[in-house]
């Protein structure tokens, strides 16, 4: 996706490449013209049209809420079907006349009106059915439109409605593990992959995140798990997904980097929050089984994704350490709370240092930055929760300073080593 500053950056880069002789100067104008021609034409129109469509659908819903009595039921039904058919007809007309953008906007309106009509029929006939079922039908209708018309707006609507459906189903009571959502999600993910739709990828990951979090929390509630078990399991799951993303990157999945970044961020959040809850219970075999399985998956996928060439010396021990820590933490009731806090803080900092080295090795700025941020947050947390006296603060700042300098030295060495390896590679004719 081209950002507003893309052309500016391109011009700067082109000037540098021309100065270095990488690009012939006479090609500059043609490259700029091509880039300008391929800028998104409808960015503002797209936002306005989508807002218009949502506004129309909201208006239709308000119309229902008014429950107007002047029109008989048959009149209401006629309006309802006319609106649905009209928006489909408009979509067909626009698409066949070569205006796919407006065609898909009209299709989105039809998708939204389908849900409005379900609610309207519910109102007309006083049907107070299981509400998530209605949302599910709505989401399936949107998905069908996305499949048949290869429509990104319809797919986005399907993904959002799918999340609403699963959250309502799980939080509404009665459903402990809403596995029925998984096939639906898988189809949306396949469609997104087929369309190579970058914004859709974020929706795919976020919808899976919501599903996984809500279902883990409900399962935890049902099986009487504590917060430590819930956070521990989520941390290991995200670690497994991070490893999986590495493996998917190896086989050329185009969104592997994005998935890896999401997984890393969520894993760090879970792992960080874990230390804030108190371990309070004994062994739960279901939890142990699920966590152990996720941990084994995390390690296996890591080995699969990082072949001997890319597997760093600390990758395997670090992954295993996170899994063991997340599994052991909920059972650490016998250990003194202060000692446990220190042990955990040390481990968390070690993990952030490993991630920094990992980021430097793979030249991944995101991993380095998020690891640095996590390091800072952890240090701040230790400061807030452990120290209070002036002497304590002094000890903290001196220790923190030494750690930071050591860290800088460590990263500097890593960077130098990386530079030397690259230089050797060039000298040896390696790519």
């Amino acid at each position, binding site marked *: 996706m081209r950002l507003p500053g893309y052309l500016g950056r391109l011009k700067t880069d082109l000037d540098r490449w021309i100065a270095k002789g990488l690009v012939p100067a006479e090609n500059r104008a043609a490259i700029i013209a091509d880039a300008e021609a391929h800028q998104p034409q409808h960015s503002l129109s797209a936002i306005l049209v989508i807002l218009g469509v949502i506004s129309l659908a909201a208006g239709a819903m308000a119309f229902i*809420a*008014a*429950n*107007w*009595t002047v029109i*008989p*039921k*048959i009149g209401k*039904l006629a309006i*309802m*079907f006319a609106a*649905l*058919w009209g928006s*489909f*007809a408009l*979509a*067909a007309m626009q*698409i*066949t006349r070569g205006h796919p953008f407006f*065609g898909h906007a009209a*299709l989105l309106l*039809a998708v939204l009106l*389908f849900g409005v*009509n*379900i609610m309207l*029929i519910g*109102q*007309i*006939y*006083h*049907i*107070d*059915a*299981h509400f998530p079922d209605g949302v599910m*039908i709505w989401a399936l*209708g949107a998905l*069908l*439109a996305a499949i*048949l*018309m290869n429509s990104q707006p319809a797919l986005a609507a399907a993904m959002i409605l799918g999340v609403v459906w699963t959250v309502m189903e799980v939080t*509404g*009571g*009665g*459903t402990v593990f809403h596995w029925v959502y998984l096939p639906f999600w898988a189809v949306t993910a396949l469609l997104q992959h087929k369309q190579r739709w970058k914004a859709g990828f974020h929706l795919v990951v976020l919808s899976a995140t919501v599903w996984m979090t809500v279902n883990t929390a409900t399962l935890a509630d049902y099986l009487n798990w504590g917060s430590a078990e819930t956070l521990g399991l989520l941390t290991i799951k995200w670690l497994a997904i991070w490893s999986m993303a590495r493996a998917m990157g190896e086989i050329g999945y185009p969104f592997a980097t994005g998935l890896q970044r999401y997984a890393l961020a969520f894993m760090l959040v879970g792992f960080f929050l874990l230390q804030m809850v108190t371990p309070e219970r004994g062994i739960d075999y279901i939890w142990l089984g699920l966590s152990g399985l996720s941990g084994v998956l995390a390690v296996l996928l890591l080995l699969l994704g990082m072949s001997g060439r890319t597997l760093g010396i600390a990758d395997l021990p670090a992954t295993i350490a996170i899994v063991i820590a997340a599994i052991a933490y909920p059972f650490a009731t016998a250990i003194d709370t202060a000692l446990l806090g220190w042990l955990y803080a040390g481990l968390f900092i070690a993990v952030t240092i490993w991630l920094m080295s990992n980021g430097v090795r793979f030249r991944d700025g995101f991993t380095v930055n998020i690891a640095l941020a996590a390091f800072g947050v952890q240090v701040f947390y230790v400061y807030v929760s452990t120290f209070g006296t002036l002497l304590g603060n002094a000890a903290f700042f001196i220790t923190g300073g030494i750690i930071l300098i050591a860290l800088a030295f460590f990263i500097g060495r890593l960077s130098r080593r990386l530079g030397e390896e690259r230089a050797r590679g060039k000298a040896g004719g390696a790519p």
Partner: protein
Amino acid sequence: MNATLRILILVLLKTVFLAGMIAWHGVVLHTGTPVLLRTEPLDPRDFFRGDYVILTYEISRIDMNGIATDAERFRDGQRIYVLLEPDAEDGYWTARAVSAKRGRAPEDAVWLRGRVTHALNHVAREPDGPHAPAQRRLWVAYGIESYFVPEGTGRDLEDLREQQRLGIEVAVSHLTGRGVIRAVLIDGERVYEEGLLR
């Protein structure tokens, strides 16, 4: 397959679904067994919310003592069937049995389909313990808990309800046990009657 044909498929499928909703409602409305239910608002202030009425029935909360059942316990969200029989004195129907499966209903009785919204399955371990057998209760939703009213008429109905008895006539499907609202009665008199297209 061109775009128009694909859109036609979408139109057809969605129209069939929506028309099916209406048709199925019509079938139950016209062929279902009429059942008269007494309403029991829990909190009069919450009785009318916006422009629809929240209806709570006597059978929305079932005290399982004295009710025949084939299940040890019920869970939240479970689909159940409640056997209703008319009261000889006032004609209102009351719950006689609860089952996880819809069996054959005796004459002058009907199985109404519902979903457990909350199940209290506590059985006392001590004679005077906190979990007495009397606490075995089910809260059930039947899909007939909302009645949409014309804008601004909710308060009038509420006043009427304060003075007289409010009853709901429900049509219960012979095939599925699903109930749909057929009429609203105030003191035995029909004030709203539901048709399919009027």
